[in-house]
Structure formats: structure tokens, C-alpha cells
């Protein structure tokens, strides 16, 4: 596995860092006893654990600045952390480092219904923003499946999406401004209350930077009007290729559905006993296709979608007739991960994105890998945007199974890169997929990423050793950078 062996910190070093932090922030904000730091040893990727030397929970921006200046002076490495729901180990601590938790920065500073913006601290939960905006008929669009728990600071770090991002975009499309503190203690505002800011688009590069460029202290998000109505079509197909083609046909018909999801038979059979969503468990693929807008608009679009799905060979079609039914149709898809946890002691969720036309090829490849590694895999697919979540089922108590699951996952990601896709669509690289970065990016590209990091974090102290692998690590991993089909310039030296 990728988790590094823990180099133990010395008691003297811990005392030094704790004393310096206590001089910077109130003592109750600094945790260092093992019983207090234990809850921070991992994020949503629980297979990777590391007890941190110190955890600090600032209560305001001045304290964040003081913490960063202290760590900079002492050359202590920092891991910023939101709610810890991330699935790629991006918030896994460093043994002799400090975890900076934004949990106490949880105020909605200002919600402006007229301007349709909310200014929030990083520890505000994603769903809490939409709840606060609901009385005004507004909401915050990105809805990652963990939205009940995950925070906006973490969403900014990961550029989180959700099931509606084909139509409504990712975090990067819905954040206007980020206020953050650099490792040197500078307060920097990226973007602003308008739609753009002068100079380079640093906001865009900061979003999705996995806590490696700065610590967020405030975020301004866009709020949008809540559609009056949403309805979903559930369509069955006797062949996954037909399901994939149906998705392409919907798009070709000029429709951008609010949600467009696909599940394979393994997935629907896995979730149906669990949630009783009414899924057709004999179908090879189930498609969920949502329309939102005014009642008349939805009626028109549903009609158009139904026609396309029928023409694409759907074997059964059901349209939600009530909000309760809509939620029931979705419940299976939204509970795919817990359902995998119910039928298997452990599961490993992958997150590649592929050009949709390669779906059949990739699913076939995954099926071959199931026999190669002797493990089962269920596939759920954000079909509209090509983001595939294979859920590999294994038993962590059998040491060999974990290794096989890891190798299985890495091979899926390589296949995603080979067909012109990417190793992560929305979960981030973190520590989990750091080796697979060697496959997707050349040494020169990885060096460019390091240079971007250095432009923000000159001291290389913010969440180092995540997301971007060193040359050394890639050499050890021993897999070559895969050239994508489109950009072969065979005669040009690639250095």
C-alpha cells in the first residue's frame, strides 16, 4: 500500500511545536494527547492512517495567520482538514506535522438573497448553505454525495461535483471568491464579489489544489434559484452498450439533463434489497435521467427524453409521478456505496473519468480484471460527464485481498488514462492515487505542478507529498507515463 511508514517525532519537537502554537492561539485550540488526536488519523479513506503530532483548531482568521507563521518559522508541515469526508486520503496527517482543522470556522458570515451570494467560513457544511438559502428560493448547486457532512473548505480543496454537475457545474463554477492565508502568513483574496478579477485566474488553480497552496478562511459562493420541479425517468436496458448509446442520443438530441446516471446489473442487484427502489434487477443497465425547471418545461423535456430513450431500445421506462417517487428512484443510486458496504466487508471506490464512447471498452476491461484479481466490482456511472465509480469489493482482514483490490483499482485507472480519460474525476488524488499520477503526467508536467505549488507555498510545507508524485516515487512505482491518443507528436523530443 501507499501509506508511508511513520517516522516518529521526538517528544522535544512536539513540546516545542505545542508551546509555540499555544503562544499563537488559545491553549484549548491545540490538541496533542493521543486520545485527542486519534480522531484525526484518517479521512474517508480509512485504510490509510497516520497519527499527527499536533492538531490545532483555529477560531478565527487571525489565529490561522498566527498558526501558519508559527509553523513556517519552525518548518513544520501542515495538513489542512475540513470534515474529513474525502475519499482519497488528502487529509491524512503527517507523523511529525500539524493538522489544521477548520471545524470551528463554521459561521455563515453573510447571505445576500438579492445578490444571490453567501459568504461563509470554510467549516460550513455544504448542505447548511442550501438550507440557509432555502427560505429565499435559492440553493448552492454542487451536491457531492457527502453534502450533509462535507464542508465548503473541503469542497474548494477538492473541486467537488455531485450528480447535477453536467448542468450546474463543479465547485470551480460556483465559487466567486476565496480568501486564504499563505504559508508566509499573507492574506490573499482570489476572485472577488463580481464575476472576474484582474490578473491571472489564481482562483481557478486554487480550487481543487487539495490544501497544498493555502489555508482557506472565507469563501463566497453563488446561489441559484431552485427549480420549481424535478422529475426523473428510470429506463432499463438489456445491454450496457445500449445504455451508453442512449446517453449519447439524449445529448445528441440537444438535451442537457439535470442528472444522468447509469448503474450496471451488479449495482442494481446490490442496492435493490437494501433500499427497495423498484429497480429492474434483470436489466443489464439502468439509466436515471432527470429534468428540472418549470412544470411546463419539465413536461416538454421529459417527453423529449422518453422519445429518445425508447428509440434507443429501452426495455422499460418509468417516469416519477411525485416528489416521493423521484426520491425513491434516486435512493438506489445514492445508496450504492452503503449497499456495497452491506454485502461486502470492505469496498474500494474508484473515480476515473472516461470519454463516454469508451464506456463499453472500459466495462469489458473491468470485467476481465474481476477474474484476473478474483474480486467483484459494481459500476455506477455519472454517465452525463463520463465519471465512473467502480466499487471493488474485498475483505481487508485477508491481507492479500487488500493488495489485490489496490492493484485492481490502479489497473482500472491506467485503463481510464489509456482511453483518453483521467484517474480522478471528483475525489482528488490525495495519497491514494499518487502513484497513478505517474501514469497520467510526464516528469515535465509534474515538475510544472511543483512549480505552481512553489509559487504559493515557497517553503513546501502545506500538505506536501500529496497529489503530485516526485520523480523518485514514480521511479519506484515503475510504470511509464501513458501517451494519450490525441497528442502524439512522435518526432518532437518530449524531453
Amino acid at each position, binding site marked *: 500500500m501507499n501509506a508511508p511508514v511513520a517516522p516518529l517525532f521526538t517528544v522535544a519537537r512536539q513540546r516545542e511545536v505545542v508551546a509555540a502554537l499555544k503562544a499563537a492561539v488559545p491553549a484549548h485550540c491545540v490538541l496533542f494527547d493521543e486520545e485527542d488526536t486519534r480522531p484525526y488519523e484518517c479521512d474517508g479513506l480509512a485504510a490509510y492512517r497516520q497519527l499527527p503530532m499536533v492538531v490545532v483548531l483555529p477560531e478565527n482568521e487571525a489565529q490561522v495567520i498566527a498558526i501558519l507563521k508559527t509553523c513556517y518559522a519552525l518548518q513544520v508541515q501542515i495538513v489542512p482538514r475540513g470534515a474529513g469526508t474525502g475519499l482519497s486520503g488528502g487529509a491524512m496527517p503527517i507523523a511529525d506535522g500539524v493538522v489544521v482543522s477548520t471545524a470551528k470556522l463554521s459561521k455563515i458570515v453573510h447571505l445576500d438573497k*438579492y*445578490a*444571490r*451570494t453567501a459568504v461563509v467560513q470554510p467549516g460550513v457544511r455544504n448542505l447548511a448553505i442550501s438550507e440557509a438559502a432555502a427560505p429565499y*428560493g*435559492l440553493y448552492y448547486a454542487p451536491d457531492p454525495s457527502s453534502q450533509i457532512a462535507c464542508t465548503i473548505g473541503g469542497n474548494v480543496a477538492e*473541486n467537488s461535483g455531485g450528480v447535477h454537475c453536467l448542468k450546474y*457545474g*463543479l465547485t470551480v463554477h460556483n465559487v466567486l471568491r476565496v480568501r486564504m492565508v*499563505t504559508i508566509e502568513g499573507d492574506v*490573499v*483574496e*482570489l476572485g*472577488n*464579489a*463580481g*464575476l472576474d*478579477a*484582474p*490578473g*491571472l*485566474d*489564481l482562483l*481557478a488553480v486554487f480550487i481543487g489544489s487539495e490544501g497544498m497552496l493555502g489555508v482557506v478562511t472565507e469563501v463566497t459562493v453563488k446561489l441559484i*434559484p431552485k427549480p420549481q420541479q424535478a422529475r426523473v425517468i428510470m429506463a432499463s436496458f438489456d445491454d450496457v452498450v445500449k445504455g451508453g448509446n442512449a446517453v449519447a442520443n439524449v*445529448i*445528441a438530441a*440537444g*438535451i*442537457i439533463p439535470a442528472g444522468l446516471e447509469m448503474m450496471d446489473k451488479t449495482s442494481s442487484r446490490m442496492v435493490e434489497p437494501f433500499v427497495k427502489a423498484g429497480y429492474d434487477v434483470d436489466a443489464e443497465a439502468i439509466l436515471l435521467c432527470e429534468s428540472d*425547471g418549470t412544470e*411546463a418545461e419539465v413536461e416538454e423535456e421529459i417527453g423529449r427524453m422518453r422519445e429518445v430513450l425508447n428509440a434507443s431500445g429501452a426495455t422499460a421506462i418509468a417516469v416519477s409521478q411525485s416528489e416521493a417517487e423521484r426520491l425513491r428512484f434516486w435512493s438506489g443510486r445514492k445508496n450504492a456505496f452503503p449497499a456495497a458496504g452491506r454485502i461486502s466487508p470492505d469496498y474500494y471506490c474508484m473515480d476515473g*473519468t472516461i*470519454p*463516454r464512447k469508451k464506456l463499453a471498452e472500459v466495462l469489458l476491461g473491468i470485467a476481465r480484471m474481476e477474474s484476473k484479481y478474483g474480486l467483484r466490482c459494481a459500476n455506477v456511472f*455519472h454517465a452525463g*460527464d*463520463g465519471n465512473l465509480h467502480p466499487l471493488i469489493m474485498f475483505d481487508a482482514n485477508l491481507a492479500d485481498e487488500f493488495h489485490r483490490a489496490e492493484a485492481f483499482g490502479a489497473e482500472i485507472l491506467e485503463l481510464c488514462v489509456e482511453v*483518453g*480519460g*483521467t484517474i*480522478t*474525476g471528483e*475525489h482528488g488524488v490525495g495519497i491514494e492515487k499518487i502513484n497513478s499520477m505517474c501514469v*497520467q503526467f*510526464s516528469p515535465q*508536467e*509534474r515538475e*510544472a*505542478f511543483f*512549480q505552481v505549488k512553489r*509559487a504559493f507555498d*515557497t517553503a513546501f510545507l502545506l500538505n506536501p507529498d500529496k497529489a*503530485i508524485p516526485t520523480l523518485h516515487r514514480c521511479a519506484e512505482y515503475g510504470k511509464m507515463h501513458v501517451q*494519450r491518443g*490525441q*497528442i502524439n*507528436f*512522435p518526432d518532437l523530443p518530449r*524531453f
Partner: protein
Amino acid sequence: MESTLQEFNARIVAASAAKTPLQLRGGGSKDWYGQAARGEVLDTRSHRGIVDYEPTELVITARCGTPLAEIDAALAAHRQVLAFEPPRFDGNATVGGMVAAGLSGPGRQFCGAVRDFVLGVDLMDGQGQILHFGGQVMKNVAGYDVSRLLTGSLGTLGLLLQVSLKVLPQAFSSSTRVYEVSQEAALHLLNDWGGQPLPISASAWVNGVLTIRLSGAQAAVDAAEKQLGGSELSNGDDFWRDLREQTHAFFAEPEPALWRVSLPSVAAPLDLPGVQLIEWGGAQRWYRGSASAVSIRAAAQAAGGHASLHRGGDKSVGVFQPLAPAIAKIHHRLKASFDPAGIFNPGRMYPDF
């Protein structure tokens, strides 16, 4: 194609070694934009052509020198569009220049800006290396989002060789409505409507007339027409094209200089002597008048935004709003890493950059 890339590589390597500036240029349709260009021209138009376009994937990939007109034609054949409606200006605009300049048209209000649609780029950096960032898929968080950092960078970080863009279907139906209202009333209406689920895809206020475009499903457009009233503008498409291309009468005279002021949509009307045209639901305000650069910038900043000298005028006042020191520091480090010899479009964005 390889020979073109080899030629670009050779010129960049030589320019870096000699520390002589290169002016990266497509069709030259935006030569007037930004600070004055200097250096020997590197014309990107020899590297052209659509590399890949899959309508059902909603992605088009094209080489930097491809004329936007070629992209438009390819998309139109499948009833798709660049939803941010980039200006074509004199018709020579290229896709590389469009991404480098980062200018969006009327569609920006609802659909997003150029940067929101850039999925990936191939870049030739100051060492002549080809670097690939992002990709051809819509969801991609592997590595930092350098493609979007390069969007609007005015060619200061490197030569964009190829870009992949998200495209969208054309709206099934659209309609343009006009209302005779004051600027204040127009701003109020736009922000009020913005909070309701209405299919408003573009807006403009000028000369006491507010014009809006409704786009979407026929039923949505019909319902919004009924709700919002106003009267129909029959040649609506021409109006939005003139706005996008800045051929509307407001932009016709070369003097006084044209300023672009980017503000929160709810900001009160700018109290500056002269005329204004408002777009993007109130978030983009064009100004021409006698106010000094200092007072325009001060007004923009006080309202929570920034101002740039978009076209004409005396560029010695600085085209773009000066950066806060902590931000400027990051800019300089990024420049130094992508373009260590400082050869790419030096001074085009800021005099020292």
C-alpha cells in the same frame, strides 16, 4: 504538423537563450487589447485544424491557430455552440487567442466564462517543452487546474498549442424582450429576476432600454414571456451579435476610451460623467466618459470590483487594475517558472510581467 511544432520549439528555445521577446499572435483580432505588444511575432496560424469533435461527448479539441469561424461552422452542423459567446471581432479570431484573451460575450451571464468551458490545454513553455494539462473530459481533478490558469493569461505563460472546450446544444427556442427603464430600475429588475427560476440567458441596458434574451425549452420561454411582459424585439439575434462584437452604436466612436468595469451585479449605478452600457445582469459595465483612470478605478474598487481600459485611450495609466502585493508575488513566481527567460508577451498584462 510536427514540423510546425518543431519550428515553434526552435524559435522559443532560441528566444529563451537570447532573452528576446516573442509576441504570440493568432489572427491579430485583439492586437488592441491589453498593454502594447512587443517582440518578434510568432504567428500561430500555421498550427490549425480541429483535432477531435464528438458532439455527443460535448467536447471539441482544436489547434491554437484554428479560426473561430471554423469552430462555429463545425458546431453549427450539430446544433451546438460555444455558450460563452466569445467575440470574433474582425472575423480573424483564433481559438488560441480566444482562450489567451479570456473574453466572453453576452452568454457569460448565465452559462459562464471562457474559463468555465476550458477542459484541457497543450502548452509549449519557455523551454520549448510540450506540457499537457486537463484533458477532454468534463470532470477531472488530477493535478492543479493549469488549463484554467492559462485562460486569460494573455500568452504571458507560454504558447497554447491546443485546447479542448466544452460545448453545449443550441437552445430549442429563444426570444428577445425590451423594456424602457432607467439604469437604476434595470439593475433592480435584473437582480430581482436573477433570484427567480427564469430562462434569462443574456441582458443589456443602454440608453434607457433594457433588453433581455430568454432561451430554453419552448414552454419555459413562453411562460417567461407571459410573466415578464415587455415587448418583443424582432431582430434580437442581430442585437446580441452587435453587442458581442462591440459593433453596437455604443462602441462605435473611438473616443473617449472604452472602460470595462466588473462589479457585483447589485452595485449601484457608477456615478461617473459619461455613458454606460450594462451587461451580464449588472456584473459588467462598459463606461466611456471624461473621468480619470484613477477615479474610475477608485469607483470600481469601492463597489467591490475592478476596472480595465478595454480599448483606446492612454495605456500608460495601466490597462489592468494593479494587483495586491501578495497576489503580485504569486504572479511573478508563476511567470518565472513557466517562462524563466521572460520571453512570452512581456508587458502585455502588466508592465513588469
